[in-house]
């Protein structure tokens, strides 16, 4: 190949620079969006754990505890405590549905589904605005040693 034939390629490496930077920034944007999902998942887990922790004691059937000394959770009361805790949280507007509360004797399991909105993917046409994250936590009341 003669020198004259090679000339049209000159400078094309510089054109790759902004393209490369855009690729890096797009990858960074994806990383930030994924970390937002991770953040929301952590928040969902912390909220579920706090709700389960509160409900495991505040949801006890007091009448039965005082008469038979059995520590048994009252399902209705336990659900009410969980709903109060979740409603008082700053994450309440992000809930995709009501919390799922499962009560068995002295154990309560709370499952939450939260919406996690993307920041950067939101501006891409056709891309999803966000996703849903699920977290669950279980608390059991135990007798102090």
């Amino acid at each position, binding site marked *: 190949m003669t020198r004259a034939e090679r*000339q*049209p*390629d*000159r*400078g*094309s*490496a*510089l*054109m790759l*620079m*902004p393209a490369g*930077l*855009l690729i890096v*920034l797009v990858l*960074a*944007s994806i990383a*930030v969006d994924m*970390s*937002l999902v991770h*953040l929301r998942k*952590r*928040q969902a887990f*912390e909220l579920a754990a*706090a709700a389960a*922790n*509160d409900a495991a*004691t*505040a949801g*006890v059937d*007091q009448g039965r505890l005082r008469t038979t000394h059995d520590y048994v959770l009252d399902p209705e*009361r336990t659900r009410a*405590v969980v709903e*109060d*805790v979740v409603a*008082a*949280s*700053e994450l309440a507007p992000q809930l995709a549905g009501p919390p799922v509360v499962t009560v068995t004797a002295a154990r309560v399991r709370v499952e939450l589904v939260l919406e996690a909105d993307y*920041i*950067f993917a939101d501006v891409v046409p056709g891309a999803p605005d966000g996703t849903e994250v699920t977290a669950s936590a279980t608390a059991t009341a135990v007798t102090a040693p």
Partner: protein
Amino acid sequence: MTRHRGDHGQVGGIEVLPFGLLVFVVGTLLVANVWAVVDAKLAVDAAAREAARRFVEADVPAAGDFGDAEAAARRAGYEALSAHGREEARSSVELTGLESPGGEAGFSRCARATFTARYDVPVLRLPWIGGFGSGLEVTSRHAELIDPYRDGVPGSAEACS
């Protein structure tokens, strides 16, 4: 006249350098700021949670005498922020709610204690130099119930039912 072959191709190359630099600087600042907010949110979440946990587990002599417990809880919140590498001067951890089921304010059984942590995220943060400017305020709130049946809490648990 000799040919200046050195100019060939630069028409399609050099002018993109400012554009590339602009994309790089603006894009990096945008991503860095968003990430700073996400990172600060993790820190204030931890601070509010630690403060609330410390407060509801404190031993308090009387319903209205919870100043020491509040101070210890706030200190726990600031320590959580510090553990995340955050400056205390830019942050605040406050008790923003303490209400019993009956509606009275005070440290009593089943009362809900709410702590709010705030952090002022700087506009630009440089390694070794620190942050500049006042950017976004990141806030987190966490509420916990004071255990109705544990020792060290004034009052009766009957109001909890």
